Each structure stands twice: as C-alpha cells, then as structure tokens.
C-alpha cells in the first residue's frame, strides 16, 4: 500500500508493553495512543527510559516475547499488528514499515558488504533479481548522498564514516518504499553538523515519497525543525500531544514545560536553565495515579496521587494529561 498525503496510515490504540523481571512486571509502555498520516512527521519525545524506543519496536513486533508482553492495537491497513502472526509481521517489516536506528556504528553488520545489506530486503520483499536489486541499491545510495555509489556497494561498514553509515542505514530503510519510517534517535550518535544533514535528508525523503515518519528523540531542538506533531512521553505514557508550534508556544503539561525550560536559548546567556527535580519513576514500581506527581511543581489536585489523568483537549490544540488548567510556563517558572 502507498499513502496519499493526509491519509491515515497508522493508528495506535492503548499500546502497552510489559516485561517480566525478577523484581516483578516492569510497565514500560502504559497505554499510548496516536495516529500517523501519510506524509506527516510525528515526533515522540522523552527522556531515556520513557518507553519511546520500546513502543516503536513493539509496533513491528521487535519486542522479544517473552520476556516482553505487548497488548493493545496497532492498526495498519486492515491488520492489527499486535495480534497478527509472526509470518504476516515479517512481510510488513522492512517492506511497509521500516526502521532506522540510533547508532550507525553498531546497527550495520560489520562482516557483510553494504551492497548485501541493502539488497537482501528488496530481494525478499520485492522479488528483485541480483541485477535489478543492484541497480536499485545504487539509486538509493545516490539518493541518500553517497558519492560514487556503484563503487561503494562492495565496501564494508567500517570503510564509511558515522554520518555516511547513517545514510546507508536510511537507504536500507527506504529499500522497499515503506509507508511508514520509524527513526529511532538516528542523529544521537552523530556530530551536530552531520545531525542537521541527516534530519534534512529524512525530511526531503518524506516529502518526495509521502511516507509517514515517526521520529523518536530526546532532542527538542531536532523536533522543532521537522515535526508536524509532537507527543511527549513520560514513564510509558503520552502526557501531552500537540502541533509542534502549539507545543512550543504554550506547553500545558508541567513536564513539557520543564523540558522546554531546560533548553538553553541563544542570546539569553544569563537565563538560568530550569531543572526537573527527582528522577523518572522505576517501571516496576510506578506511582499510583499520575506518574509525574512526585516530581510535579504545580500539583493542585488530590486526585493526582490516586487517579490517572487522561488526555483531554485544552482548546488550544494541545491534548494534555493533567487534572487542572496548567499555568503557562512563564507564570509557573516565576
């Protein structure tokens, strides 16, 4: 299937991921819901351990079960990816939904040529023969900006720089013209200038192909540049989701406000950066009620400790999981 801009391609509802550990069940993803349209970029933002990577691995069945357990629905076309067979999922993976990963140094297989790693997916899903796959691999490498691609197919990953390897990873992701591309912190391991190039490249490719992009990151600076919508995750839940401008202009959840307040702003060197006191909760011992209440600077409602707030519309385009009208960040900080 191919998406036309604006057409819904992915619908995630009440996705939960738990892991059995010796200390008990770890609740890593706790009922997240979102949608993705063709040609759209959704950024999922959160700290390390907020469940953003695991939730995206769960979409395409890459969470090992056991020890993991995935429930909820991931509607992709006619299928629910959570319940469909591993064989059906295999046909979706790399073909309809592709993924690129954080560390290009370790995500490519060091003992196989990049040509082999690029073509194996297309040969499987698109049934291309060796020559057609090779031709397509050269086109893809050219498209992601690898110079003289025909001569580089026989090279191994260690012969490429970090940024070039991530370009190769992106080419692998695009191999079968996916409808959805999940980018799991693809710029984290790269230096800043390379980061900007990779962000721009993925955005160009999205515009050209009309694929939907889920961009997972902890970097709010990256998000501002490319995302259409942002979902902020905390302790396995989406605590706020909004169009990117709305989120930056008037963040409503105290956690989002804290995250934005911790970003340095150019030209304001004397401004003290905000911090969020405390640590994210242990997924084995999540607090009852709102997961953020032990760290929340604005707690007003007794229900915070006992009842989990659901996402609700603030009327400004933000969906926020709080019980009260959160003050704008400027007032909260002062």
């Amino acid at each position, binding site marked *: 299937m191919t998406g036309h801009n604006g057409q819904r391609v992915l619908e995630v509802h009440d996705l939960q991921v738990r892991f059995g550990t010796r200390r008990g069940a770890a609740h890593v993803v706790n009922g997240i819901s979102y949608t993705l349209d063709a040609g759209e970029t959704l950024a999922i933002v959160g700290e390390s351990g907020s469940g953003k990577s695991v939730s995206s691995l769960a979409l395409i069945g*890459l969470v090992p079960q056991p020890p993991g357990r995935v429930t909820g629905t991931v509607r992709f076309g006619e299928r629910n990816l959570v319940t469909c067979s591993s064989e059906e999922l295999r046909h979706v993976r790399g073909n309809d939904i592709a993924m690129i990963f954080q560390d290009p140094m370790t995500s490519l297989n060091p003992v196989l040529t990049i040509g082999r790693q690029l073509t194996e997916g297309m040969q499987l899903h698109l049934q291309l023969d060796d020559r057609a796959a090779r031709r397509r691999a050269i086109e893809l490498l050219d498209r992601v900006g690898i110079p003289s691609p025909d001569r580089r197919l026989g090279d191994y990953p260690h012969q490429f720089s970090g940024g070039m390897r991530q370009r190769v990873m992106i080419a692998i992701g695009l191999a079968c013209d996916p409808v959805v591309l999940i980018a799991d912190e693809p710029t984290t391991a790269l230096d800043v200038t390379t980061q900007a190039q990779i962000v721009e490249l993925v955005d160009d490719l999205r515009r050209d192909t009309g694929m939907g992009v889920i961009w997972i990151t902890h970097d709010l600076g990256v998000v501002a540049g490319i995302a259409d919508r942002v979902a902020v995750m905390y302790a396995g839940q989406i605590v706020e989701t909004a169009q990117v401008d709305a989120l930056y202009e008037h963040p409503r959840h105290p956690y989002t406000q804290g995250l934005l307040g911790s970003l340095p702003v150019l030209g304001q060197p004397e401004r003290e950066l905000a911090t969020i006191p405390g640590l994210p909760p242990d997924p084995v011992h999540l607090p009852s009620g709102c997961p953020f209440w032990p760290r929340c600077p604005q707690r007003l409602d007794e229900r915070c400790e006992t009842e989990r707030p659901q996402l609700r519309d603030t009327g400004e385009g933000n969906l926020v999981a709080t019980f009260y009208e959160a003050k704008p960040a400027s007032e909260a900080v002062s």
Partner: protein
Amino acid sequence: MASYVVRRVAQALVVLLGVSVVVFALVHLVPGDPIRVSMGTRFNPDAYEALRARAGFDLPLPVQYGRYLANAAAGDLGVSFRSGDPVTTTLLGRLPATLSLAGSALLVALLIAVPLGIFSAIRSGSKLDYVATVFSQAGISLPDFWMAILLILLFSGVLGWLPPSGYVSPLADPIGWLSHLVLPAITVGVVSGSILTRFVRSSVLESLGEDYTRTARSKGLHERTVVTRHVLRNALVPIITVTGLQLAYLLGGVIIVEVIFAWPGLGQLALLAVQSRDYPVLQGTVLLVAVVFLLINLIVDLLYAAADPRIRYK
C-alpha cells in the same frame, strides 16, 4: 593481505627461534649430565664417552646451539638415546596415529558443539538450553580417563562391539583402523566438544543481542536467514580461535587417553621419553608440538581475516 601473511609468518619464525632456545636449554637445565642420568645403572664409561661425543656435548654451548639449530632446520633432530633411531623418524612414525585421533576427535567435538551451541543460544533459557548446559558441564568435569574406562567397559566389555585398545594402520586395514579409533575419538571429542559448546553458545548469544541483528530482523528477513547470514558470520571469530586451540592441544597429544587406549601417538611418545630420560626424543616432541601450535595459530589468524573484513585492511 599478502603483507599481513608475511608479517604473521615472520612473527611465527621469531617465536620459533625462542622455542628452539628453550628446547635446547632443556637438556642443559637437567641437574647433572643428561647422558649420565639417562644411562642410569647401566653406566659404562666407553658408551658414555661415545654418546657424549655423538651428542656433541664436548663442544662449547653456543657452538652446540648453532649445530642444533642448523640440524633442526635441515630436519635432523638428533638420535634417540634409547633406540638409536633418528628422532625425526620416530616422530614421523607417530604422526598417522596422532593425526587420525586429533582429526576425528575434533570432528566429534564440532559435531556436538556447533548444533548444540547454536540451538541453546537461540533457545536460551529453554529446556534444551538447560540440558545442553548440564551436558557440557558434565563433559568438562568428568575426568577423561574415567569416561574412557566406562566406554571400554560398555562397548567392548558388555556389548563387544569395539576393540578395547590398540592401533591399526589405516593403510593396512581401514575397517580395523576405524573400529580402534571410535572409542578414543569419542572420549577426546566429548571433552573438547563440551568446551567448544560453551564458546559457540556464548558467542552466538552475544551476536544475537547485537544491534545489527535487530536491524536484520527489522528488514523482515526469515529468522533462519538472520541467524545463518547475520549472526553466525559474526560469531565465527571467537569460535575459530577456540577450535584452533583445541586442535593444537589435540595434536600435541592427549597423554592419558593415549596411554589407556594404547594409542601410539605423540603424547605417549612424550611420556615414554620422560620416563626413560630420552632427551633428544623429548626435545623433538616439544619442538614439534610448538611448531604445530604456531602453524595452527597462523592458520587461525588467516581465517580471522577471511571471517572478518575489518581485520583484512588493518
């Protein structure tokens, strides 16, 4: 690639030179006179002088070493104090038995270790993994002489299927050679296989957890392809290392097993040489084992380069 080979061969030659010094010194580190000691109660002054002169012990040490080195390079490792036969001939006579035992034992070991190690890694934490762990632990812990005795009791004592000990040349009687080979090969192979199983398992397990394996899965490849194409190729380097070491160890002679099965290999020869204080034979055996180790390490290094492209270009 060629410069890599040349460099590794040169390194091996330097090590070999060091080994030759140690082997040469072996005779001179023995308290007293090796020839006097080796003659024991059968001492006879004329024979003593003759043996000393033949061994060149009346010359200065550096000259002796130079002669030893020159002779060894030409394949002459001296003459046995005991039998009077050239050491090289004696060693070569032991090679068929040693090679057949080492080769077949390694085959048994790999036939056990590769499938068992891979499957217990893929199904890690399962019953099969548990059984494999118990098996390999038992194989490592059980003394090989005890396992040899149990196997002899069962297969030649109770069942009468196989001969209890001895060696027949494969040229004279291939079936007899094989039937004599089975029990020692299993004894040695099970021990080696148990050690190898652990390495295969941990190496495959490590590779299964790597990011590139996740990438391979994210492409929607069949799990079989993920394991054979992506995981095993990467797991190969540590497996090659340990297999090479095991083979070198087997070629150096498995003394106890050879003694139990009356197997005329290098291990048994070394034991006899020690017991009868036959220094030239002992020197020759040690030198040969050292050469075998170096050769196998060289081959292992070259195989690394074949298995891992990152080594080739360094």
